[in-house]
């Protein structure tokens, strides 16, 4: 390990370590990390274990809660896909998230480019203003928005209501992200295209957009995952089962009265939950950069 230099210098604060100190520090580090990992991942592990176990194993007090006695199986997943509305909610979720992605990009690519590159008076203020709306939480808006969506847009109790409202929180974020990406594309290459006789549109289409593909993909996937995190709007605006998304369908419909079907319930939570968590993880750094306005870069 001595061959690998410490990543940053904050970690090298304090006295110079003797071999004994070093060993002690390393083991403390790993013990602490393992404790953190247990805290973070235990609920997930327990969910996984509980979905795979046979129903009777869940309530049998002689079974170790971390392990199993009767054979593990995938019956709960089978039941989920064949006997519940879970596939419909899954489809709704994907449809909603994909449409939100489309709307967000269609609005944020031109908007971001204009704010980053065109001589627009007050661009900076406009950008900050739009970005700040991200800090207005849904709880302040959900009652009137629900009325608006039902009365003005005629989307009462429909998944399309969510397609309409989710961009309110993806646009501020993704516009800010796109602006940042476009600012980082060197001006020189665009100018070179202009000098070579392209007009502005051609320069953008042939030069700037192709270079910005990673940024566009990031913003798109970001909008996609962000749309899958909402609960309040989905809870308030959609109540019929065939229009629900996973986030509300699973907690509101798979809990039936006081009787819980934990195996199916946890399978339904775990499957999409882990998938989304996995994708989101790759974009977490952009999320942090977005929130902090890039201060941490």
């Amino acid at each position, binding site marked *: 390990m001595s061959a690998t230099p410490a*990543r*940053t*210098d*904050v*970690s090298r*604060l304090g006295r110079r370590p003797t071999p004994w100190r070093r060993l002690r520090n390393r083991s403390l*580090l790993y013990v*602490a*990390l393992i404790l*953190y*990992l247990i*805290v*973070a991942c235990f*609920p*997930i592990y327990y*969910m996984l274990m509980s979905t795979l176990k046979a129903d009777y194993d869940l309530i049998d007090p002689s079974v170790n809660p971390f392990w199993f006695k009767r054979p593990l199986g995938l019956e709960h997943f089978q039941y989920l896909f064949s006997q519940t509305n879970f596939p419909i909610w899954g489809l709704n979720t994907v449809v909603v998230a994909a449409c939100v992605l489309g709307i967000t990009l269609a609005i944020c690519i*031109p*908007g971001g*480019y*204009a704010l980053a590159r065109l*001589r627009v008076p007050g661009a900076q203020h*406009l950008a*900050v203003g*739009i970005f700040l709306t991200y800090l207005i*939480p849904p*709880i*302040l*808006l*959900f*009652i*009137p*928005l629900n*009325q608006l969506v039902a009365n003005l847009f005629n989307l009462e109790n429909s998944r399309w209501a969510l397609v309409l409202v989710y*961009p*309110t929180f993806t646009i*501020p974020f993704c516009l800010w992200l796109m602006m940042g990406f476009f600012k980082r594309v060197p001006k*020189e290459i*665009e*100018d070179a295209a*202009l000098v070579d006789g392209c007009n502005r549109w051609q320069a953008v289409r042939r030069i700037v957009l192709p270079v910005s593909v990673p940024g566009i993909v990031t913003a798109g996937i970001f909008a996609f995952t962000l749309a*899958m*995190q909402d*609960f309040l709007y989905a*809870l*308030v605006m959609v109540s019929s089962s065939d229009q629900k998304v*996973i986030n509300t369908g699973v*907690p509101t419909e798979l809990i039936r009265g006081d009787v819980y079907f*934990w195996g199916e*319930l946890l399978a*339904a939570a*775990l499957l*999409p939950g882990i998938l989304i*968590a996995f994708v989101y993880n790759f974009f*977490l*750094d952009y999320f*942090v950069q977005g929130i*902090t*306005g890039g*201060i941490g*870069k």
Partner: protein
Amino acid sequence: MAQFSIEPAVVAERVPRARRFRVPGEALAGYALVSPAVLYILVLVAYPFFLALYLSLSNVTVAGGFGGFVGIANYLRIIHDPTFIKGLENSLSFTFFAEVGKSVLGIGLAFLLLQSLRGKKLIRGLLMVPFTMPLPLALLGWKWMYDPQFSVINRVFGDMLHLMHQPYPVWLGDPVFSWFAILIVNIWRGFPFAAVIVLAGLTSIPKDILDAAKVDGAGFFRTWHFVIVPLIAPILFIGLIYDVTFTLSDITIVDVLTQGGPNGATETLPMLAYQNGIIGGNLSSGAADALILFPLLFAGLVFFLRMLFRRTVEE
């Protein structure tokens, strides 16, 4: 055409500026390109916001329609309502203690993640799952862990480690334990985010400043207090404001776990707003319940704005 005799880098600097000046439509085109975003925000954020304000100042129910403008009567009524007081109390205490818990755990984790580790990407990814997994879904796991009969927490700390004695707590059915149950999930969900924020701050500190502190003989805690914290204060505050905003306004945890119960013990303002405004159909009460959070959120917003502007001006 004298520009072409200048070296390329300088041309790149100059040409666009000259060109831009010659395109009068550029600003117009710019506004046209941003206008969909602005329109979206105006129609679906700004307008509903003022509508909420208007609702809270009048008397509107789903069933009865518009019942007249009543000024601050809704606010006066709700602040004398014990349920509201309990909700306000809980909203503030959950947010405060959750932020303390997240900060302590988050700062600790950030320093751990600074070290060179094998498989750091994987470890970090696993540690972030509480934050990246959609909350309503993760909450179902917690609901099962807090189950009145089969709570794994009781089994581990009671049956296996003997740290708790019978009768074991009914986590979501007892006024005190349910309060802690909600707080625990709040902290669990948010500490990874606190850690990445602190980490982003720590990695942004220039190396020479830390070297200087070292040369001057500052130990770890002095360096943390006098050098690191002042330097990363902006990023910490922004992370905090963001997190406070979303902790204060979250409805998911309470709705999935307790729905405000037992007997109002875990009632929060967002939950009240939902219960009054949507389930009870009293739009005005619901709007007032939610908007009473706004002064708190607004203070955060102003602070955020100042930070952001200070930075962009420096740029």
